[in-house]
């Protein structure tokens, strides 16, 4: 793992991997979409069950991305490794976008099914909103500090603090009485849904996950290249 932490080796190793991830994401998205619209209407939810096939991937992958951001922040802070900082930075925008989609698609499901776009008292909705605000805060903090070393440290601390919110999001449906339904997939008794819905859901989760990996890897590689450009420009400016 630490062998890959060398930026040159990282660039070389991930070069053939990146197009494979993009292609896999595209295939999974097409297949998952097909299954999403061939599944029968739910006897209670009707066609709104199809919103779940984008909502659950957006939410679960959006949550996992914060885990990646937090762990990268830890390595950036403790080992001062530039690659870890690049990884944390590259995760923030897709994480914020996925979480925003989870909120928006959940709202679009909530209106016809609950009769409300939003519920302020719901612990799951609020903890996901806080997750989104951590992403936004992380990006705003980075953007507000010009000194890259200082920005790295400050952002890494904020990134780490936000990890506290992850178990709250995950277990909010168990710890509090929420309007939001409890976990249907990761539970001791096994998934609580028939295969016709489980299949599109799992394929879509894989698709969004792999798509994030493709975006993330591409963005980390870009960040390494960007830093090289910045350092060459700085050296040329000194020589001139």
């Amino acid at each position, binding site marked *: 793992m630490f062998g890959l932490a060398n930026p040159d080796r990282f660039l070389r190793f991930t070069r053939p991997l990146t197009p494979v991830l993009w292609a896999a994401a595209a295939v999974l998205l097409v297949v998952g979409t097909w299954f999403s619209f061939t599944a029968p209407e739910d006897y209670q939810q009707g066609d709104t069950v199809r919103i779940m096939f984008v*909502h659950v991937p957006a939410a679960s992958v959006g949550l996992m991305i914060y885990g990646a951001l937090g762990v990268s922040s830890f390595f950036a802070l403790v080992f001062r490794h530039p690659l870890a900082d690049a990884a944390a930075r590259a995760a923030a925008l897709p994480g914020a976008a996925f979480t925003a989609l989870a909120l*928006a698609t959940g709202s679009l499901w909530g209106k016809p099914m609950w009769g409300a776009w939003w519920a302020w008292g719901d612990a799951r909705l609020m903890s996901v909103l806080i997750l989104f605000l951590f992403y936004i805060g992380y990006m705003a903090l980075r953007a507000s500090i010009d000194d890259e070393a200082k920005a790295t440290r400050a952002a890494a601390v904020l990134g780490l603090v936000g990890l506290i919110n992850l178990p709250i999001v995950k277990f909010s449906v168990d710890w509090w009485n929420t309007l939001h339904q409890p976990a249907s997939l990761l539970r001791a008794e096994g998934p609580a849904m028939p295969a016709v819905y489980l299949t599109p859901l799992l394929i879509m989760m894989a698709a969004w996950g792999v*798509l994030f990996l493709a975006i993330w890897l591409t963005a980390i*590689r870009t960040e390494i290249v960007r830093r090289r450009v910045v350092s060459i*420009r700085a050296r040329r400016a000194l020589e001139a």
Partner: protein
Amino acid sequence: MLDLDMGRYAAFVWPAWGLSAIVLAALAARAAHAARRWSAELKRLQDEPGTTESQP
């Protein structure tokens, strides 16, 4: 069978899928565009005449 008739829920299902498609496409396009732009800039700097460096 492919079912594209969302009936009375069309106003909720299609915006959810449409929004998702737009955001995912934008993220992918942004990542690909930035990758091309910075690689081209690095190549330009490294190819500039009178410079010997290859890697910083």
